[in-house]
């Protein structure tokens, strides 16, 4: 039936936006005696299944815009925004966080001004849209997001058992998770920039409350830090809306797909402002501290908001504006911010022993790489950026959940305490191993993307700068991943197995995510040809892909990597075990050695952190200064354009 799919897809889009919201509300108001875990599981299943169904229906459809009447919706949105603003003001004043208060006021004022002056006269017709990039984002949010929600059930229970001092606010926790999912779907399906800003602010708000979940002083401070930095981005976003509306009273250009095709002279100003908002959301360098602070949140929150989805919204919006930024100096500045963030975050991760901070730095770094690709914005870099986004989301969410599970069991998130995990928690250690391999080893995802990035940057303007950044930053990331990997696979004998008592749904989620890391690496050529290439083609009129021969070689390598562990079953000569060499002083199977006076000591091995070279303070200061400089140049340039 011709055109029938249009109706079907819009139904799916609306379902994905509204269904998590309904689940969220049900979860909030369900009676105390009611077992909410079933609602979470069923909702998660529904969201995941519908996202996949959307893929099946929509992957070959290209860009579709939908006329949805916006009148009442706009009103509801403004009311919600004002309610949130009032709530934030109240919290800000109560906690004496006046910078956040000022930003809330400024933003609320901007939005009110926009609505009063322009918004009332603007009636956009095409509020929703849908293309392959939306499908990719929807899959990330729908599959990974719902898996993390299911995982949270078990995690939060153990979390509250371990931290009886923290008030159990799980009802609100799940409400926010699902509200967040709804907002993410809204963000990726909205064509109307006003709507995007609304959903953008909802994600900021969810992130703010979830970071402050434990209500300790540290958590509250970090939550306000995240709020302030994201609001700064929100202010820039609102300013972009006002600029567009002021320049184009018809408001047609408030539609994303029209705006990006409206030409450099007009679109560059909103593009830079919104990209600035994207930089704050993606925790690029001057703003990276909020993401590190956000690690105080329960681990599923870090996995969902601060690695696989919400921060991806930041790069998503920059990716949307990539065609505008291509070849401009402003775009180059944004790309450089991303590049420098990638380099410095990868270096700083070397000096960290807190597993979640390492993951946070790695997330910041990889988002930086995506921003660099999007800022330079040629067609092949667009392809790379989307690929990076997919691989990163899958592998990083797995790693966060693994670290969360380990933390639940051993009571520490320090990498130094994860020694010999392969003996203590074998299954989990293998999962972490696969996740890390996904992050930095050939032929898994991230390295494919870095490779493609080098090949793409080489033909791009000023590409050499980025290649050098990639060469050094890539090596640095190899160091911190590998030493962590080494830590967990050290075989320390006679250890107790701690892998008991992990709930089956947690295992299920971990297994699925591990499977996804491998599957995505196996079928990425398919993802590329079905989703990414058509999208890039539609935007740029040309596209790219890896050479067939190379894909074959990579798949062969992956196959080899998968079968290599089985070689352990066929050892020629029966091995004899001997303790490690310690100058002849080994005792007790290599776990102890005899020191002077015949005293037996435990063998303790620590990793190198090279703090003098890759220490946080120095690199962070440098990065902040340089990146502020770059952002200022970009802002001055657009002021120049306005004048």
């Amino acid at each position: 039936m011709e055109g029938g799919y249009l109706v079907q897809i819009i139904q799916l889009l609306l379902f994905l936006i509204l269904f998590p919201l309904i689940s969220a509300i049900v979860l909030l108001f369900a009676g105390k005696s009611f077992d909410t875990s079933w609602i979470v599981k069923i909702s998660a299943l529904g969201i995941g299944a519908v996202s996949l169904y959307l893929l099946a229906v929509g992957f070959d459809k290209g860009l579709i815009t939908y006329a949805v009447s916006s009148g009442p919706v706009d009103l509801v949105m403004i009311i919600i925004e004002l309610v949130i603003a009032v709530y934030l003001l109240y919290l800000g004043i109560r906690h004496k966080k006046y910078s956040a208060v000022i930003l809330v006021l400024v933003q609320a004022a901007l939005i009110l001004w926009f609505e009063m002056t322009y918004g009332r006269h603007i009636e956009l017709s095409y509020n929703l849209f849908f293309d392959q990039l939306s499908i990719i984002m929807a899959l990330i949010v729908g599959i990974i997001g719902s898996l993390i929600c299911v995982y949270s059930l078990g995690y939060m229970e153990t979390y509250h058992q371990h931290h009886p001092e923290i008030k159990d606010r799980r009802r609100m926790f799940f409400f926010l998770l699902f509200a967040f999912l709804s907002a993410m779907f809204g963000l990726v399906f909205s064509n109307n920039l006003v709507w995007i800003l609304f959903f953008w602010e909802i994600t900021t708000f969810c992130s703010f409350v979830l970071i402050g979940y434990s209500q300790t002083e540290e958590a509250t401070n970090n939550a306000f830090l995240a709020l302030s930095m994201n609001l700064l981005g929100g202010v820039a976003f609102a300013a972009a809306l006002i600029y567009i509306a002021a320049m184009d009273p018809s408001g047609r250009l408030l539609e994303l797909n029209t705006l990006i095709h409206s030409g450099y002279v007009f679109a560059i100003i909103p593009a830079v402002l919104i990209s600035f908002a994207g930089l704050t959301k993606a925790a690029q360098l001057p703003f990276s501290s909020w993401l590190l602070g956000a690690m105080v949140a329960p681990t599923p929150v870090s996995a969902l908001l601060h690695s696989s989805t919400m921060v991806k919204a930041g790069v998503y919006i920059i990716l949307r504006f990539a065609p505008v930024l291509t070849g401009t100096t402003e775009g180059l500045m944004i790309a450089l911010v991303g590049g420098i963030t990638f380099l410095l975050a990868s270096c700083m991760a070397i000096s960290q022993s807190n597993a979640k901070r390492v993951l946070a730095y790695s997330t910041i770094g990889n988002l930086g790489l995506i921003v660099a690709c999007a800022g330079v914005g040629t067609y092949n870099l667009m392809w790379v950026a989307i690929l990076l986004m997919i691989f990163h989301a899958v592998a990083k969410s797995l790693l966060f959940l693994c670290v969360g599970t380990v933390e639940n069991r051993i009571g520490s998130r320090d990498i130094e305490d994860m020694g010999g995990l392969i003996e203590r928690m074998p299954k989990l250690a293998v999962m972490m191993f696969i996740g890390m391999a996904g992050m930095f080893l050939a032929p898994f995802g991230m390295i494919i993307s870095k490779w493609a990035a080098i090949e793409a940057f080489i033909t791009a303007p000023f590409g050499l700068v980025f290649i050098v950044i990639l060469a050094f930053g890539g090596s640095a990331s190899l160091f911190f991943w590998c030493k962590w990997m080494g830590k967990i696979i050290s075989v320390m004998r006679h250890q107790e197995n701690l892998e008991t008592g992990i709930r089956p749904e947690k295992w299920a989620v971990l297994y699925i995510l591990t499977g996804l890391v491998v599957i995505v690496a196996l079928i990425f050529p398919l993802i590329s040809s079905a989703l990414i290439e058509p999208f890039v083609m539609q935007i740029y009129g040309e596209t790219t892909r890896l050479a067939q021969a190379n894909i074959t070689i990579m798949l062969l390598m992956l196959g080899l990597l998968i079968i290599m562990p089985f070689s352990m079953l066929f050892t020629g000569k029966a091995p004899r075990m001997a303790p490690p060499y310690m100058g002849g002083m080994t005792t007790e199977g290599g776990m102890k050695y005899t020191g002077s006076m015949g005293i037996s000591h435990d063998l303790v091995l620590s990793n190198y952190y090279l703090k003098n070279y890759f220490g946080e303070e120095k690199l962070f200061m440098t990065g902040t200064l340089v990146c502020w400089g770059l952002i200022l140049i970009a802002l001055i340039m657009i002021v120049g354009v306005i004048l």
Partner: protein
Amino acid sequence: MIPEPYEAIVKAIIYLLLAPVLGGLIAGIDRKVTARMQGRVGPPLLQPFYDVGKFFEKENLVVTTTQNFYALSYLVFMAVAGALFFSGGDMLLVIFAFTLSHIFLVLGAYAAFSPYSHIGAERELIQIIAYEPMIILTAVGMYMVTKSFYVGSIVQSTTPIILYLPGVFIGYLIVLTIKLRKSPFDLSTSHHAHQEIVKGVTTDFAGPNLGRIEIAHWYEYVFLLGVVYLFFAWNPFIAIAAIIIAYFLEILIDNTTSRVKWQMTLRSAWLVAGTLGVINLGVLYYLRMVVVP
């Protein structure tokens, strides 16, 4: 361009069969020349083969059975990297496979949970991050000159690549010292008998596993010298002469310098990559990509 599949497979097989022979001979010549430099007669030319033969005669002594897997993976992926290189594959893919194989060596050392292996592993990682940027820049430099990442195309180029990439070549030679585990950069393990951390990464490998690691080193030699060849590919005779001179220089440096600390290794390798490599490429980028696109 991308080589024909059959031709590529034949080349890969030839490499897989001949590289250990050639690599072993290179190691033998290395030991012989080193001995002469020290005023000794030195071992027979085929000594490396005797050593490896012996390793396979010995008992398989391990700290943990996972070491078998890591040692084998090191060998397999080193061979894969070299085979990809000699069958004319993509340079960057070759580099990634090459790095992957080293990661397995490092993991093998970590797995043993032994102080000497552990320090060796950390140092090996520092060595990897020290040399990797320069190797990637080498591949990028080759692309800038020949407009291809495929070894098959680079080798057929009639351009004297060395004239365009003198800085990159010097940088490559310096990281080659790290890669060949020669003084002053033989931090993680060395081909000499002793060092302050016993044998570094390979301390807790014995018997057949050590043999596999040694064979992997042979594959590695041939691959690394193959990259030297590419700089001079327009004239095979000069290229082979260059390989001989380069290797002789490495032996000379090995015998005349003392081991430095990791700080110095990292700093000098990154400094070289960041100055010689980047300036060379910057000039080339400007000329090739900006002036004459």
